[in-house]
C-alpha cells in the first residue's frame, strides 16, 4: 500500500516543493557550481560530463567522481543533486552515504540494469526519475520517486522531445479525471501503473509529486514553453555550460522560469545572450543513441 502520509515521503516531496519555480543546473566542477549558485540556481546536479559530451564521446557514463562531488558539496549552499545509473542501487547507496540532497536515477548515464529500476522506497534520500508518459511516471512514483521530470532528449539542445513528454503526461492525467470509477482498473492496466496511483491522479488531476521538465532546454524561451505546458520547474543540462556565455545564460533562464507568463520580461531575458549550444535534429540521432528510451 502506498503511504502518502509517511514521514519519509513528506520530507522527500517537501524538498521537491521547495525547488518549484526554479532552475536546476548540471555542473561538472566547483567553478561551474559557483556560477550556477551566483546566477540563482535553486539546486545543482553534479555529473562527470554534461549530456552533449556523453553523446559525443560515447563510452560508459557512470556516477560522478567522488572528490569532485565532495568539493561541489562544500563550495555551494544550495541543494546538491547527483546522478546514479538506472538500477544501480549501489551507486545510489554511495551517493546517499556522501550526503547528497537528491539522487537522479538517470537515463543520461549508461543503465546498469535493463529490467529493474532502483527500489527507491528503501532509501532516506529523495529521488527524481525521468518519464515520457504517465504510466512511466507512476511506475517510478510507485518505486518511491519524490519528483518526476520529463526525459526529453538530453544533450540535444532540442526542446521537441521535452514538449512531447510534458504534453503526453498532462493529457493522460486530464483523461483520467473524466473516467468513471469502474474504468480506472482498465486504465491502470493500459498505463501499466499501480491502480492506487491511477485513482489518485483521477481524483486530483495532478501527480502526487512535483512534475518538472528536462532534456533539451537551451534558451529562456524553452524554459518558459515547458512551464506554460505544465512543468513546475526546469532542469538545464548542457544548455548552460555549452553556450558561449554560461553565467549570463544561467541568469536569463532563472529569470525566465519566474516570468514564464510575461512576454516583455522574457524578451528582456532573451537579449544579449551570445550563442546557444549547438542543437541536434532528433531524426538524425541513430535510434540506438537515443537516451530517452533507456528505462521503462
Amino acid at each position, binding site marked *: 500500500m502506498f503511504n502518502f502520509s509517511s*514521514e519519509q515521503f513528506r*520530507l522527500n516531496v*517537501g524538498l521537491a516543493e521547495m525547488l518549484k519555480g*526554479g532552475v536546476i543546473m548540471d555542473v561538472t566542477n566547483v567553478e561551474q557550481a559557483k556560477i550556477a549558485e551566483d546566477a*540563482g540556481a535553486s539546486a545543482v546536479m553534479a555529473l562527470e560530463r554534461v549530456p552533449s559530451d556523453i553523446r559525443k564521446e560515447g563510452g560508459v557514463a557512470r556516477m560522478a567522481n567522488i572528490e569532485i562531488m565532495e568539493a561541489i558539496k562544500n563550495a555551494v549552499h544550495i*541543494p546538491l543533486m547527483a546522478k546514479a545509473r538506472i538500477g544501480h542501487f549501489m551507486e545510489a547507496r554511495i551517493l546517499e552515504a556522501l550526503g547528497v540532497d537528491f539522487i537522479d536515477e538517470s537515463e543520461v548515464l549508461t543503465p546498469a540494469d535493463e529490467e529493474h529500476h532502483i527500489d527507491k522506497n528503501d532509501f532516506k534520500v529523495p529521488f527524481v526519475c525521468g518519464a515520457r508518459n504517465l504510466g512511466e511516471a507512476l511506475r517510478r512514483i510507485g518505486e518511491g520517486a519524490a519528483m518526476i521530470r520529463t526525459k526529453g532528449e538530453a544533450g540535444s539542445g532540442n526542446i521537441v522531445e521535452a514538449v512531447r513528454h510534458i504534453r503526453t503526461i498532462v493529457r493522460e492525467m486530464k483523461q483520467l479525471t473524466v473516467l468513471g470509477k469502474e474504468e480506472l482498473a482498465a486504465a491502470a492496466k493500459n498505463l501499466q501503473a499501480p491502480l492506487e496511483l491511477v485513482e489518485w491522479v483521477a481524483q486530483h488531476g495532478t501527480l502526487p509529486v512535483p512534475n518538472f521538465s528536462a532534456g533539451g532546454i537551451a534558451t529562456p524561451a524553452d524554459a518558459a514553453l515547458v512551464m506554460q505546458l505544465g512543468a513546475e520547474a526546469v532542469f538545464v543540462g548542457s544548455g548552460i555550460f555549452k553556450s558561449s556565455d554560461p553565467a549570463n545564460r544561467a541568469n536569463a533562464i*532563472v*529569470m525566465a522560469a519566474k516570468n514564464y507568463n510575461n512576454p516583455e520580461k522574457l524578451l528582456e531575458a532573451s537579449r544579449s545572450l551570445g550563442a546557444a549550444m549547438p542543437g541536434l535534429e532528433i531524426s538524425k540521432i541513430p535510434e540506438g543513441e537515443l537516451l530517452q528510451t533507456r528505462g521503462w
Partner: protein
Amino acid sequence: MKRVGVLSLQGDFAAHGAALERAGAAPVYVRERSQLGEIDGLILPGGESTTMLKLLRHENLFDELAEFGRRKPVFGTCAGAILMATDVTNPPQESLGLMDIAVERNAYGRQLDSRVVELDPAPEFEMRTAPGKLEAVFIRAPIIRRAGNGAQVLAEYAGDPVLIEQGRHLVATFHPELTTDARVHCLFLGKL
C-alpha cells in the same frame, strides 16, 4: 475580507496558497511590484533564499518589500525567515532586516537531517489559536541563533526558537504550510 499576498518568485508558494485557503483567506500570488498595493499582509515562502534574493534584486522588489514590512505584517517560513532576518550566516548574505534575529542557514545539516517533529507550543500560541501539539516539518532548515528585544517565542525545538513573533511580523524555521494544521496561518491572519 483581508487580502494576503504570497511572494511567488520561487519555492513552495502554492503550498502556502492552499494553507491560506484552509485558514479561510484568499491568496494573492505576488510576482510584480504593483501587486504590493493590493494586499494587507505578505507571506515569504520556503525555497532557496539565494534564488529569491537574486529575483528580488532583478525585479526591483528588494527595497519595496523592506518598505512594505515597515507598514504591514510579513510572515516568513524557512527561506522566508532567512530573508526577514537582520543577520544571516553560513554564508553571510543580504536580507530585508524586518526582524531583529540572527539566522544560520542549513544549520541542522543537509536533506538527510530534515525531519518531522511534534512540538509543545507556548501557552500564548495555544491561547490565541487552539490547544494541541504542533507538527513541525524541518527541511534543510535554518536555526535562529539570536532573537532581539521584544521577540515572543511561540515554539521551541531542541532549545532553539522555531516560531517567533516580533511586533507585526512572524517567522517559522519550519513549514506549517506542509501540514493540515492551519493554526500558524490563522495566527498570522489574526495580525492583519
